[in-house]
């Protein structure tokens, strides 16, 4: 290697290494949002984790359902685990750990992704929406209301993911026909097989425009 590679090396050391004590890269993001305290539950859990994970944990900020939330995570923590175990948002479900069931679907900057297949540290400057972020107080999101109206679930284990996918499918404009809905909802498995009612609920909700 020639000596002139020194400059980029120094750059990445200064700016891009996100690890314990090296939080500079994300401090700017944190400052951009109002920050709410993580819940007491999360803090207690953090303490329990501290002994083992302190060495490589990094402070990050996730913007979830419109709130910036500070937390410390090991880089290997998935967005799903960060939501469920650290931010106390257990509405997003874990079904397979490999992107094959869809139960963990969330919206990131309006696009649906499987939160088991992304790291929390990769989603810091994104707007994350989980199922808990859909309703406005007592007012359910039209998709949530349609799922109840159409009895679009039994056990409910897939429902959070189905609903998040449905919100995205409607935004994506893939609700022109039941065939289209079925194709674009095919990343979410329902073992109770409430599929006919799910399709009906999506079709119904697509007719409503949220004010």
């Amino acid at each position: 290697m020639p000596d002139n590679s020194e400059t980029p090396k120094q750059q990445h050391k200064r700016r891009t290494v996100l690890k314990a004590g090296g939080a500079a890269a994300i401090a700017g993001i944190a400052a951009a949002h109002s920050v709410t305290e993580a819940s007491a539950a999360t803090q207690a859990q953090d303490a329990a984790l501290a002994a083992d994970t302190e060495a490589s944990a990094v402070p990050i900020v996730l913007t979830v359902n419109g709130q910036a939330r500070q937390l410390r995570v090991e880089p290997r923590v998935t967005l799903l685990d960060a939501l469920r175990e650290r931010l106390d948002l257990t509405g997003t479900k874990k079904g397979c750990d490999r992107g094959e069931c869809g139960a963990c679907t969330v919206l990131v900057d309006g696009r649906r992704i499987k939160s088991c297949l992304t790291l929390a540290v990769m989603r810091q400057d994104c707007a994350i929406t989980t199922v808990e972020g859909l309703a406005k107080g007592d007012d359910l999101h039209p998709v949530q209301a349609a799922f109840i109206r159409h009895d679009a679930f039994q056990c409910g284990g897939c429902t959070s993911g189905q609903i998040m996918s449905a919100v995205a499918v409607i935004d994506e404009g893939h609700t022109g026909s039941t065939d289209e809905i079925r194709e674009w909802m095919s990343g979410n498995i329902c073992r109770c097989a409430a599929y006919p009612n799910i399709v009906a609920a999506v079709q119904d909700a697509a007719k409503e425009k949220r004010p």
Partner: protein
Amino acid sequence: MSKSAPVRTPTDLTSSVAGGIGASPQRPDGNLKVRGEFAYASDLWHEDMIWGATLRSPHPYARIRSIDITEALKVPGVYAVLTHSDVPGKNLYGLEHPDQPVLAVDVVRYQGEPVALVGADHPETARRAMERIAVDYEVLEPVVDMEDAAHGRGTPLHPGGNLVRHVPIRHGDQQVTAEVVVTGEYEVGMQDQAFLGPESGLAVPGEDGGIDLYVATQWLHVDQKQVAQALGLPLDKVRLTLSGVGGAFGGREDLSMQVHASLLALHTGKPVKMVYNRLESFYGHVHRHPAKLYYEHGADRDGRLVYVKCRIYLDGGAYASSTPAVVANAATLGVGPYDVPNATVDCWGVYTNNPPCGAMRGFGAVQAGFAYESQMDKLAAAVGLDPVEVRIRNAMHEGSLMPTGQVVDSAAPVAELLRRVKDKPLPPVNRTEPVDIREMPGGASNTTHGEGVVRGIGYAVGIKNVCFSEGYDDFSTARVRVQVIGGELSALAHTAACEVGQGLVTIMQQIVRTELGVERVTIAPMDTTIGNGGSTSASRQTYVTGGAVRSACQTVRGRLFELAARKLGVDAVGLSLHGGKLVSDLHGVLADLVDVLGDDVVDETVEWRHRATESLDPVTGQGNAHVQYGFAAHRAVVDVDVELGLVKVVELDCAQDVGKALNPEAVLGQIQGGSAQGLGLAVMEEIQTSGGKIRNPSFTDYLIPTVLDMPPMSIDVLELADPHAPYGIRGVGEPPTISSTPAIVAAIRAATGLALTRAPVRPEHITGT
């Protein structure tokens, strides 16, 4: 009492939308579920809790020479490492035979058998500690052949040998012959329940030395009994509360993490959470028994059955679980919903070193159903009859005799169900140009634009027993309380019967509304502070717990009438309740119940049992073993790409008798769900094993139907009341799983002309490669 309660414990379900029986009110848990707020077992959290993890055997069969936990204990953050010697009570449990160790002692009998437990501050710590547990195994040759196991060949895996149960049935003339004989050998693969929420729960140590266990299960009291025995605790020190259940389908009837988390909690004095991931879940619960079935049907030239002879083998894997009951089902339902004057049935359930198998929707009737319905198609071909016609000629009806000698004493509309699915309009053949590849086998994967695609139509009908059988004391307990809260008449219903998604909580509210005329009905969390509710299995909860709730309501109503009689000075006879008002036959409306009750609370607990059944004669298999029979029929329309062996199920219509649809929407949901699981078994779902090891323990390679695999269904629901059952209902959840698989496979046979004797049908079977 426990030290404190966890975060997100199950709460009263207070959401109550009007609707008595026969209506389809919204679920009381619906709002919580769509908001992501329903407290599933995996969502529990407790201050100061630690995490449990299970070290499992990598070998299907091995002797354990030694277990060394020294290094694991040194990992910082580890609170406990436990082995069999730490089990304070009986280190054996099981639904029917206690034959399964809580933690393996000197031998492991299946891949994934629990050997040691770790409790640590973090799942990651527990994982690291598990890597440091040194288990010295002497690997042994696994027993994997179910027929060998049934007939005493191979190493005995348990003290009594490898036969778990043999049920023979001898009905009619055993020497009879027939003009037309068709024979067949069939196989059914191992299916997984694949519920979406893996096993999980939280054990909280109590100040009294007991344990509070929050868990997703199908049967709280049978868990309680087994946990108490393993912990060496009296029953009242093991308290269970049902947490949200992410699907069950039979796979949660056996214990998974219940004893393990409790052991860790008692040892560490800390709340312990255990959550399996999907990989561990494949090893953490029993599956549907794979089966080999040998059938011979004898008939006259008109296709009327003269006899059925069959031998059925069910591989129970390493431990008994519910194998004995599954064997009885496969045997007693082994000839299907037909009038069979003479039958010779033998069914064996065995131990092997394959994954343990037990309850799954359909429970023994699925395997037999695939074989006897395949045989009926063969018979139809042999006598030159339409497959529906040959079934109708032999269809059982009310008054028919089962091979067990039991008279079918309520509606058995088998012929009607078949006619209904046959008479439904057929879907058009999609051959418009250009083709929409989504309508083709292979779908968006673009494997055909119509080339090689052949349509096939198949029919099947099935029979399933409802409720527990063979003399089992099958009952449920319900408590109903009525009082005035905030000036409004309110009822509370409390049972230990597990809501697993099927909608029991909705049904309970509907029954209370209908029986007491009270609109506001709260469902208390399901727990062991009340008596046994029995299992959420055998399609039994609406029947048995529904019956118990109705009975409790009737008792409450009697108490209300007594109260009214005393307070109002009227005769308790001739009173009734309508819309919150007390009504007399003679005098019309007497008073608002709110006023009659005042500050009084009426609270009654009732144990309710269905009519008794009998055990089977061990030699002849005769006996009134079952409570009720349920029936469903399917017509499957498939498009098969015969060159590639890919199948698209185009339509899957169903007709089922449900006695009385207490909640018509929920009934349809059960029929769709059961049919989908049958579709999975027909064309994609199988746990593949090799030498006792699971080859596909993931959702990448264990495929379950997506929305694109599930076709539209036209469903006819018949309501022919069973006079012996509450409201005339007939269990709904299982029958559609039984007939769905053989109907689809029959349709594939019709398209391909192939024999197809194995489910699931793989592309290799169709292409001969």
